[in-house]
């Protein structure tokens, strides 16, 4: 299974959208840098993330969220927050990584 990383805002680029379309059940999706905006509640893309959570794991990098002024309680339920060590663990856990630049 692949680990997909998305580092662009879902409101600026199609990266998240295409990632969700071209990823398989069981894969991991890690939101980082501007990609973390997709992890927040109450956005236009919230439904897409909730849908992905049905059969995929979704992670968000907490330092990137905090840097942008958000805390864990603003994050969609089911999205797992990780730190940099967790990022490394994910890269090792999955067979390969696709970065949606």
């Amino acid at each position: 299974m692949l680990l997909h990383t998305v580092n662009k805002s879902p409101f600026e680029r199609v990266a998240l959208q295409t990632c969700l379309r071209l990823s398989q059940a069981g894969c991991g999706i890690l939101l980082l840098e501007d990609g973390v905006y997709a992890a927040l509640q109450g956005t236009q893309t919230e439904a897409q993330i909730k849908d992905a959570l049905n059969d995929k794991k979704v992670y968000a990098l907490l330092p990137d969220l905090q840097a942008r002024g958000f805390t864990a309680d603003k994050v969609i339920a089911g999205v797992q927050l990780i730190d940099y060590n967790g990022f490394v663990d994910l890269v090792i856990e999955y067979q390969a990584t696709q970065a949606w630049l």
Partner: protein
Amino acid sequence: MMDDENSGGKIKKFLYLNRKAPYGSIYALESLEVVLIGAAFDQDVSLAFVDDGVYQLVKGQSTDGIGMKNFSPTYRALEMYDVEKLYVDQASLEARGLTEADLLVPVEVLDSAQMAALMAEQEVVFSF
């Protein structure tokens, strides 16, 4: 580990995933350069074109007016480097009003499920 991988012992599945249009950024050209360098290492190489990456393969590119190198003929040369597996995302083509006939090389057009499966079977993915 490097010695082992480069000495021809194990062939890995490599995917180059191209998602950027050709001249607005350096991604497309850099990808092509890395593909050509990588071709010397006898891996199982696939190229996929998704999102604006499909614009890289459009016929009739002419860059005289912008003073940049037209690198599109290189895609036709990939075959000589044994890089023969080119895949294009159908939804990305359709969203841009393009068909296979608009492309400068033969490709295999994949639907979303097929493209997702192609990606999932790779051991190494290069993202451009």
